[in-house]
């Protein structure tokens, strides 16, 4: 073990000596470190509870498009079923309706309203097989999940001002030209069609005349703004819950709806992650519970409680994690813990080199000490890693 630790330290030190081929930058709040992000609440709890990462996720923005999306999934099946196979959908019902009174500032103010404004519902289906006394059983699983974020007042993103540098000069001449045209022809003030023609013509001309670098800035900053709004800082608490249900079973060569779902409610998950996210110091607390009863004679559960703190400077980060886990399988009960420290170097925007030391949950083979160096990818969102299952 000592040799392993020595090697890991050597690898860690050699990483520190890497040439600076990425520019130093302030670590943003969403790409803190992969290990930090892994503790976050899953983005789509329904997919997480089924342990799937759908390649195509439907995100309808209205009830109508949701209905079309669902019917389209049903149509793809050879045999009619109320539960389509391999269906993945995620919706944010708050934005299904119009909110003309909701200003950007009010949205960014956060508070209790942020919980329902950010509420997403996810739904997914997948086909599973479990072994039982009567042989393998195939059944369709349906996962349903809900997730919301509670956050405090957000700082104004810098991109707004940068967008203004491009957009305000479009708005000013248009207003001036309209005011001048009305001064010359007062009847125009009541002619909505004539004014619309003038507005459209002038705005299109201003957009065409906009220098290409300004257009590029506008596109880039819009994208940046969208990301910055989604990447919240300060106090952020995510809460999610999900349930997995079994609905169908295989009979011979066909899959049919059974009168009583064979799986019933077979998986439940709950996650709560209060966090404080900033440029230098961030901390996250974790409470997560998973219960699974797919196989009737072995009910499994696990709950985790703990947290992680990370201090980052430029492309370097150091963090500490403590997690307590109680898990059970059938009549067995186990208490475990994980204590780890990690040192990370950001190699590129999404890639981190990590050296981790400490003790992991699994101690079946000896002390359970961790000493490893790894290359990790971070995409600003929690990795689609399955929840902590007993014995996993």
């Amino acid at each position, binding site marked *: 073990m000592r040799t392993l630790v020595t090697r890991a330290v050597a690898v860690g030190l050699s990483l520190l000596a890497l040439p600076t081929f990425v520019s130093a930058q302030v670590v943003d709040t969403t790409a803190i470190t992969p290990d930090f992000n892994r503790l976050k609440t899953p983005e789509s709890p329904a997919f997480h509870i089924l342990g799937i990462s759908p390649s195509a996720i439907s995100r309808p923005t209205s009830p109508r498009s949701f209905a079309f999306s669902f019917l389209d999934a049903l149509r793809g099946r050879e045999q009619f079923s109320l539960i389509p196979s391999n269906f993945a959908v995620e919706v944010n019902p708050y934005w299904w309706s*119009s909110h*003309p009174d909701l200003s950007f500032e009010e*949205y960014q103010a956060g508070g209790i309203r942020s919980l329902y404004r950010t509420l997403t519902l996810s739904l997914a289906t997948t086909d599973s097989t479990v072994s039982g006394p009567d042989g393998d059983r195939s059944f369709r699983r349906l996962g349903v999940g809900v997730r919301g974020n509670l956050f405090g007042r957000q700082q104004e993103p810098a991109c707004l001002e940068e*967008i203004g540098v491009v957009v305000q000069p*479009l708005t000013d001449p*248009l207003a*001036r030209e309209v005011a001048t045209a009305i001064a010359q022809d007062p009847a125009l003030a009541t002619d909505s069609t004539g004014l619309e023609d003038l*507005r459209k013509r002038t705005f299109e001309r201003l957009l065409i005349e906009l220098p290409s670098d300004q257009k590029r800035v*506008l596109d880039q900053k819009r994208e940046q*703004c969208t990301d910055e709004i989604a990447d919240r800082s300060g106090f952020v608490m995510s809460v999610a819950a999900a349930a997995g249900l079994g609905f169908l079973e295989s009979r011979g060569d066909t899959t049919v709806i059974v009168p009583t779902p064979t799986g019933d409610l077979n998986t439940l998950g709950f996650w709560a992650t209060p966090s404080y996210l900033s440029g230098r110091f961030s901390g996250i607390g974790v409470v997560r519970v998973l219960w699974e009863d797919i196989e009737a004679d072995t009910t499994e559960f696990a709950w985790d409680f703990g947290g992680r703190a990370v201090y980052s400077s430029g492309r370097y980060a150091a963090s500490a994690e403590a997690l307590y886990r109680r898990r059970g399988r059938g009549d067995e009960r186990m208490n475990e813990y994980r204590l780890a420290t990690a040192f990370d170097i950001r190699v590129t925007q999404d890639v981190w080199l990590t050296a981790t030391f400490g003790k992991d949950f699994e101690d079946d083979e000896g002390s359970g000490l961790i000493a490893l160096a790894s290359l990790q990818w971070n995409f600003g969102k929690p990795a689609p890693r399955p929840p902590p299952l007993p014995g996993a």
Partner: protein
Amino acid sequence: MPTQVADHEVRDSVPVFLTILIGEGQMGFSTVFLDQEKQAARREVRRLPLGDGAEARGKVLVVSTTVVDIRGEHDRTSVTVQLSDGIEQELRQSEDAHESGVVNYLTVIRFV
């Protein structure tokens, strides 16, 4: 149609204020002219004084607002122009932002 015209009846001694609300959680920039005189050019216009009724009567208010779609959840935009002088008048327009990601709105109000 992102252009709207209206009349607003003013009262001599009552000051008129203008508020521009950009909705749907989006952001935008506005320029306000009263006749040919620029009153404001900025992101937030809240209770901008336009003078009292006697001063404003006969003038034309021109509000040009460009909304930038910065939301990942949807591409709706809306602008509400509110005049307040004891009696509230509200003019609301909404459009979807498409490829360019910007929507320009024009509101013209005659003070009578």
